[in-house]
C-alpha cells in the first residue's frame, strides 16, 4: 500500500459500501493480516477498541470507539496519545555525522544548538523531496532523526548508500536504527501537565524543538517537544518493553481526558495545522521551496548549498518556484486529493493534494498546489469534486492556529 495515503486508507474502511470497480478498494494493496507488522501497543489498541487497518505495512489503529471527529476535537481541547511506533527512529553517530547529514538534508545542522532540532527535508538530485523528517542534534557527535514509516526502506537505503561513499573517503559516521524503541506522540493542552507527573525533570524548561534524554515513568526516554498536530506536545521514544506501561500511565494520569487517538484523527489534525503529509502534499518531484518549506533551508545552506539538488533549489529561491502549496476553503463536498483547481474562468491552475472536513472548524479545508501568480490569499477558485465545480478560495495556513511552546 502506498505509504502516507490516509485517504486511500479511509477508502478501505468503506469496503463494499463503495462500488468495488470504481473506488480505491481495488487500488489498495492487500497485505494479509499475517504480513502486517505490529507495534508494541498492538494488543493494547485492540483491547481499547481500536479499529486496526493496514498502513505502510503495519497494522495501525485508524480510530477507537469514539469517532474521528470527536477524537480530533478532543486533541485540541484535552489531549491525544498516538502510537507512532511504525515511524523509523535512527541515530547517526561519529565525529563527522553533522557534515554527513548536511549532504542529505537542507537544514543547517551545524548551526543547531545541542539539544535542539527541526523539521527538514531529505532531497534528491533533482531538488525533489525524498522524505520529510524531524532531526535533532543531541550532541555534535550524535544526531537523532525520525522518518516516515512509508519511506523507511527508501530512506534507509538512501542514507546507507551515501554513508558508504562518505566513509570510503575517510569520514567517521555510523548509524543505529532504533527498532528496540517505540515512539509515542502525546499532543494537546494536557500533554505537558500529564507528562510532568511522570518525570522529575522540569518540562517547563523544554521548549518547542528541544530534546532531552531523561527518565519517564521509570525508563530512559528520548523526549522531543514536537509533534505533527499544531498543538503543544511531545514525541517520546521509549524502550519497546516499557511502551505499554508508559501509555497506560499517561492515560491514567490524565484521568481519561487524554484519549488514545488513531491515524484518522492524526491526519485531520495535521491538515488543520497546514502540515504536509509525505506521499500526498510532498513527493519526489516536489521541492521544499514549492512546498512552502523555504524556512527549513538554513540561511547558510541557501548560500552554500552542499545538499543533493542544491542547484535546482537555489535557483528556485532566486527566481521563485513555478508552483506553490496553498490552503483552500471550499463549499459543497470536501475536496480530496487529485481534485482539479480552476480559476473563475475555468482554466486549470492547480490540484488538491489533500483535503477533508475540519472537525474543529466545521468546514472543508484542503491544501494543494497552484501556479505561482495565482497563489495569493483570497483568490477565488473552483474545485472540481466528482466532476462538478464548487466555489472555493485560497487561504493561508495553518487553518487552526498553532500552539507551540516557545519562550515568550
Amino acid at each position, binding site marked *: 500500500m502506498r505509504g502516507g495515503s*490516509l485517504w486511500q486508507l*479511509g477508502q478501505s474502511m468503506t469496503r463494499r459500501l463503495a462500488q468495488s470497480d470504481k473506488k480505491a478498494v481495488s487500488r489498495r494493496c492487500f497485505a494479509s493480516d499475517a504480513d502486517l507488522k505490529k507495534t508494541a501497543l498492538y494488543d493494547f489498541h485492540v483491547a481499547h477498541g481500536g479499529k486496526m487497518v493496514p498502513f505502510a505495512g503495519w497494522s495501525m489503529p485508524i480510530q477507537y470507539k469514539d469517532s474521528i471527529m*470527536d477524537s*480530533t476535537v478532543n486533541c485540541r481541547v484535552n489531549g491525544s496519545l498516538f502510537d507512532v511506533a511504525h515511524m523509523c527512529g535512527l541515530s547517526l553517530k561519529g565525529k563527522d555525522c553533522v557534515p554527513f547529514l548536511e549532504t542529505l538534508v537542507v537544514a543547517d545542522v551545524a548551526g543547531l544548538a545541542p539539544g535542539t532540532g527541526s523539521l527538514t527535508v531529505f532531497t534528491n538530485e533533482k531538488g525533489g523531496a525524498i522524505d520529510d523528517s524531524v532531526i535533532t542534534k543531541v550532541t555534535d557527535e550524535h544526531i537523532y532523526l525520525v522518518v516516515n514509516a512509508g519511506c523507511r526502506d527508501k530512506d534507509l537505503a538512501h542514507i546507507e548508500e551515501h554513508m558508504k561513499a562518505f566513509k570510503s573517503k575517510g569520514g567517521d559516521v555510523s548509524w543505529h536504527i532504533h527498532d528496540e524503541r517505540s515512539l509515542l506522540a502525546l499532543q494537546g493542552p494536557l500533554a505537558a501537565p500529564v507528562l510532568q507527573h511522570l518525570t522529575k525533570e522540569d518540562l517547563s524548561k523544554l521548549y518547542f524543538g528541544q530534546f532531552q534524554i531523561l527518565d519517564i515513568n521509570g525508563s530512559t526516554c528520548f523526549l522531543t517537544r514536537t509533534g505533527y498536530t499544531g498543538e503543544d506536545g511531545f514525541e517520546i521514544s521509549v524502550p519497546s518493553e516499557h511502551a505499554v506501561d508508559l501509555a497506560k500511565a499517561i492515560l491514567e494520569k490524565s484521568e481519561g481526558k487524554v484519549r488514545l487517538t488513531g491515524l484518522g484523527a492524526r491526519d485531520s489534525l495535521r491538515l488543520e495545522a497546514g502540515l504536509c503529509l509525505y506521499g500526498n502534499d510532498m513527493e519526489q518531484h516536489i521541492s521544499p521551496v514549492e512546498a512552502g518549506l523555504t524556512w527549513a533551508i538554513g540561511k547558510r545552506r541557501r548560500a552554500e548549498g552542499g545538499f543533493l539538488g542544491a542547484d535546482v533549489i537555489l535557483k528556485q529561491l532566486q527566481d521563485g518556484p513555478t508552483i506553490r502549496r496553498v490552503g483552500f476553503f471550499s463549499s459543497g463536498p470536501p475536496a480530496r486529493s487529485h481534485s482539479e483547481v480552476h480559476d473563475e474562468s475555468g482554466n486549470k491552475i492547480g490540484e488538491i493534494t489533500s483535503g477533508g472536513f475540519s472537525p474543529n472548524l466545521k468546514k472543508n479545508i484542503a491544501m494543494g498546489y497552484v501556479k505561482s501568480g495565482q497563489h495569493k490569499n483570497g483568490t477565488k477558485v473552483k474545485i472540481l469534486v466528482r466532476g462538478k465545480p464548487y466555489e472555493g478560495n485560497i487561504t493561508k495556513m495553518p487553518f487552526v492556529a498553532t500552539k507551540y511552546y516557545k519562550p515568550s
Partner: protein
Amino acid sequence: SFQKVIFYGTKEKKKANLPNPFLVKSSSSIIIIRRSVSALTLSTSLSVTVVFCALRSPRTKKMAARFLWASRAASHLRISIAQRGFSSVVLKDLKYAESHEWVKIDGNKATFGITDHAQDHLGDVVYVELPDLGRSVSQGESFGAVESVKATSDINSPVSGKVVEVNEVLSESPGLVNTSPYEEGWIIKVELSDAGEVEKLMDSDKYSKFCEEEDAKH
C-alpha cells in the same frame, strides 16, 4: 397512539402492555428495543426500546433462555434483535440491497437511505450529495454519495424510479445519517417504475446474515 414497552429483568415478574404478556425471570438484565414503525403494518405507532445490557452474574443457561425469550418478544414485535458480535440495527419491515441501502415501500413510493451497518463503518457523515428532483434512478446504479471524514461512498438506488423528494435537511445536518439512519436520515423518495424489482432485494434476516458474513471476512 404511542405505547412504550420496557422489559426489566428483576426479581419480580413484570407484565408488559402487549397482547401476549411477556414474563421476565430474575437476574439483572435489562432488555430494551427501540424502533418506530409507520402505519403500514400496524394501525398505531409503536415505540419500543430494547437494549441488551451486561449481566452482573452471567449464567449461560439463563442468558440463553433470556435471549430466546427476547427473540420471541422481538419477533412478536416484528423487529430483529442484535446478535452478539454484530451490533447494527436491522429493521424487519424494510428491504435491503447488498450495497447497504434500505428501502421502505409505501404503495408505489419508496423511501431509502443507508443502513445502520453502513453508517457505522463510514463514520461521521459530513456531506450528502443529493440528486435533482425528477431525475430517474435505476436499480443498482449510483445516484449520489455520502462522505465521511475519511471516505466517500456512492449511494446506489435499490430500485428504479423517479426522484420525487430529497431530504434537504441533510444539507444542514448530514449527521442525521449517523444518528437516525432509518428515520430522520432518509435520503430520497422515488416513484417506483417497476414494483417487481423489490423481489430482488434482501429481507432483514438475509441482510443481517450478509452483514455478519462481510464483517467476518475482515
